[in-house]
């Protein structure tokens, strides 16, 4: 069975929010839209986003890491949001593993958001239905789009290509290779949700320079072998 997912490379994510707004602009006018905004031009503006970037610090100065952490629905293989839904609005597609909400069936009871340990669901406060990442299902399945464009908007937008997209059940896919080779991990696996989305950890590159490497035989200082003689006394001047 196909399980589509995102693999997010924290080693290159700079927290630019391209994924956040490209998602919003695609989806608000798409199948899963609109994505409503509350107080759009006034105090405490808030709205529906399928994808958000959290930034946090790890460690204490000067040994501090600043981590940008994009978060969206992880399209769990055992999604706890699905069985709790009283109307069947929340469902997991058998053909590609994407977890979706049917707004026509949703009664806005929020059980699913309580069940989701990742806080990935967003209630539309105007329409009173639950909304969430669809992996841009209306793009990736649209045969009228070019193959290049049949990807989630966030993946296409990401300037650092930090978002890989593919089938994590296909061992040869780009995402499976990345998970295998780069130590891709799931969030809170202890919950047994088997999130399809994975994260790739940071990797540090260091240079080690041995003291012996500092000076080479062709050191240019040797070409400035300057010993100016300006008439001062030397042993050659002492005649006995």
């Amino acid at each position: 069975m196909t399980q589509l997912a995102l693999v997010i490379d924290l080693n290159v994510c700079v927290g630019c929010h391209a994924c956040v707004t490209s998602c919003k602009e695609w989806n608000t006018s798409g199948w899963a839209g609109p994505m409503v905004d509350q107080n759009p031009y006034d105090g405490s503006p808030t709205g529906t986003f399928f994808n958000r970037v959290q930034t946090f610090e790890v460690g204490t100065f000067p040994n501090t890491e600043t981590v940008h952490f994009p978060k969206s629905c992880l399209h769990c293989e055992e999604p706890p949001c699905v069985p709790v839904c009283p109307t069947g609005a929340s469902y997991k597609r058998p053909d590609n593993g994407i977890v979706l909400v049917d707004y026509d069936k949703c009664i806005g009871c929020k059980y699913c958001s309580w069940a989701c340990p990742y806080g990935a669901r967003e209630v539309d406060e105007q329409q009173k239905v639950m909304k969430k990442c669809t992996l841009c299902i209306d793009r990736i399945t649209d045969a009228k789009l070019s193959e290049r464009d049949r990807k989630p908007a966030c993946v296409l937008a990401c300037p650092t290509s930090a978002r890989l997209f593919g089938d994590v059940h296909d061992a040869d896919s780009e995402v499976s290779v990345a998970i295998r080779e780069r130590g891709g991990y799931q969030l809170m696996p202890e919950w047994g949700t088997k999130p399809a989305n994975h994260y790739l950890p940071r990797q540090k590159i260091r240079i080690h320079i041995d003291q012996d490497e500092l000076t080479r035989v062709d050191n240019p200082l040797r070409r400035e072998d300057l010993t100016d003689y300006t008439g001062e006394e030397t042993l050659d001047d002492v005649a006995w």
Partner: protein
Amino acid sequence: MQDPVSHSDSTVGRVEVKETTCYMCACRCGIRVHLRDGEVRYIDGNPNHPLNKGVICAKGSSGIMKQYSPGRITQPLRRKAGAERGESAFEVISWDEAFGMLTERLARLRAEDPKKFALFTGRDQMQALTGMFAKQFGTPNYAAHGGFCSVNMAAGLIYTIGGSFWEFGGPDLERAKLFVMIGTAEDHHSNPLKIAISEFKRRGGRFISINPIRTGYSAIADEWVPIKPGTDGALILAITHEILSKGLYDREFLVQYTNAAELVVDDESRADHGLFYRAEMHVEEGCFDPQNKLWWDRDIDGPISTHTPGADPRLMGSYTLPDGTPVKPSFQLLKERVEQYTPEWAAPITGIPAETIRRLAHEMGVTARDQKIELPIKWTDCWDNEHESVTGNPVAFHAMRGLAAHSNGFQTIRSLGILMTVLGTIDRPGGFRHKAPYPRPIPPCPKPPHGPEAVQPNTPLDGLPLGWPAKPEDLFVDADGEAVRIDKAFSWEYPLSVHGLMHNVITNAWRGDPYPIDTLLLFMANMAWNSTMNTVEVRKMLVDKHPNGDYKIPFLVVCDTFASETVAFADLVLPDTTYLERHDALSMLDRPISEFDGPVDAVRIPVLPPKGECKPFQDVLIELGSRLKLPAFVKADGSRKYRDYPDFIVNYETSPGSGIGFLAGWRGKSGDQVLKGEPNPRQWEMYAQNGCFYHHELPRNYQYMRNWNKGYLHWARAHGMIRYAEPITLHLYSEVLQKFRLAAQGKWPGRQPPDRLRQRVETYFDPLPFHYDPLETQLTDTRRYPLNALTQRPMAMYHSWDSQNAWLRQIHSHNYLFLSPSVGIANGFGDGDWIWVESPHGRVRCMCRFSEAVEPGTVWTWNAIGKAAGAWGLGASADEARKGFLLNHLIAEELPAHDAGDHLSNSDPVTGQAAWFDVRVRVYKADPSEPEVTSPQFTPMPRLPGQDRKRGKWQAYMAGVFGKK
């Protein structure tokens, strides 16, 4: 719901896809704008565009909310008779009336004294047109925002290596092994740098970030080196010290391609002390380095012409020429200079341990030396030496405003240019690479006017409003050596202010120093808010009156797309379009979007009709130029020459028959010429067919070593990009600076500075790099104000242009002062508390946030998230005004009075770069009885006539139905 798999966007409404160029920031990516029933449905990156290769950022993706923002101005507005300036009491007028008012007024000023008209613009990317308009009008009082952005970066590097970062060059991360980013740099270049950094990291490159703050790109650096603000020069000089003392410099590169081995007169008693010794030989006159200089040859132990085949010059030592002149190679002078700058010296200044500084130097030096790149590309240098390969040392740097926005920035950036040079990384693979039209001569040829006589009634300016002084005679001063420009650019106060000093225009005009002006036209420059220092006082100056009731700045015209804070102060408001509604040319004459591999320029072509009565500022200038009968805009009989801006772009040539115009692509009658050629009536069409950009990829042997690449330089000359095909020797030692210093010392035969400025010019025009405390630090009680305060630019709000944007403002609706927990503990407040931040010039109240990702002597906030109440189409209670704040209130535009003058700009003494990052502050807890709102607050700006009505509590954007609701 419909099964999403059966849903196709292509079946919803009438679908159109149009290509143009983004303008949500100054990066200028290629975009595809998808329309549904004429409304913007989706904006994505153009996959074929050389800049962004299909990606798009948070801002670019939010263009929809810019287009449909209720903050837009839609009608020309005139301040109501009897209404006070600043009250936003306007009435709608027609464009005819607006043009009538402007033409009548400007024609009068042009006939009386063109200086009375000043035109200053923001990040408009159309300086080729605005600068030309100013010159044609005859006023020198023109500049764009470069003086308060990053002119130190432009000047510091262009006066050293003949090119600079961002538009004109950058780090070659495709081949670098080590990448060092110093200071805030994430905003210039945006997407291309993000693309390059991620590919660089994926290839296993090592990324070091040196920055007081760890945010943005620094977050993914392999190593973060926190540094105290304004001390980068000390660090770079100490690294250079270590590289020189270990012999980790690229000797061959220095000898062949820089002035390192050239002999400098070393006799303080002589008038030519510190100048290169010039041999008697015929040299052509021109703005290039004549090659009449000498090396000291090892083998003959005597002087020899530079680049004599087989010569092997000394880089060190001191010598006496046969005529008795004592000389030293300039590298020797550099070595002597950096001897004092040991890592141990720099450690307490920068806050970086000496062993770290030493290690950084070793990483740079050993990587450059031992990981040499060799590309099998044959090329020929200017001395006719054939090279079998192009080689490179894979250490790349990037820096921008973090180094630039200090009053020691010019010398710091020269230090960086010198470090990049001694490592042998200029226009070589893996190092720094130029982008067309750079490299250019050091300095480039265009010069400002030389004296007040350059300004004459009804006559174009004699000289260019902005240029590149190479000697004191190039300054724009009167007989007393005092400024002629309103911003005092190119005066002895800031001799190399190549981008002008926009940040002093309002203060100077208000004070009438050097003279009062009549009309100030501002284009997308928010000078009553975040594009000004000392904001509270500047807002008062804008409304200040003479005793007779006249405003001190009599007439203020503001052209903007949105109801910015500055619009409130206008006497006349001109509604500009958005980037989706206009033609634009991102020209080789200005700041194009070239790539390392060759020139690239781009256009915008309207995707949507203008909203209301909005008119592109470009068209406003063409119209005004025609009505004022400025020579470039009218035919010999005085009739109008260009129908509109698109017509102008196609047909204008820099001089009749020059073949050089605003656009480089598809020139010539049939569009088969590059860069130079006759106007092509189908040029716009050809750009439209090519994604709105033109990319000329150079042959590979013209892509490197361009300062000295004979083939490239001749190609560039043949295509009108450069006047001389002469080598552009790197200025390790700056003879240009020394000429100004000699003038200050009274040794220069020509112009000399006024006495009050002699010491200042002598000190800061040092031909060798040096480190000094920022000027304001020198004049501030740093015990009372112990902290440095900085701003950073959040990528989603880069340029602070988009508080009117419903999506972007949800990411940053307000800002905090970030500081080390140790600062909070020492001052008795906690995380999230309301605090006061006070500088010698003012104070603001804001909320704080503790952060471990900041050097403890530094506090910082996001730049210009705070807005004045009611501006930008936001409600008066918007977070931007109630919880957001502006650091600008704390930053003075002038230095305290001191020996060099009472009103010197708070700027770099060489370039006039605004010293935003020099401000010193202290912090303390706000009283619990104080209101939980930021301070200062301003009277809310009302909605303007023509602005959309206030939007409701909910907004659900759905393309195709949004406008119909």
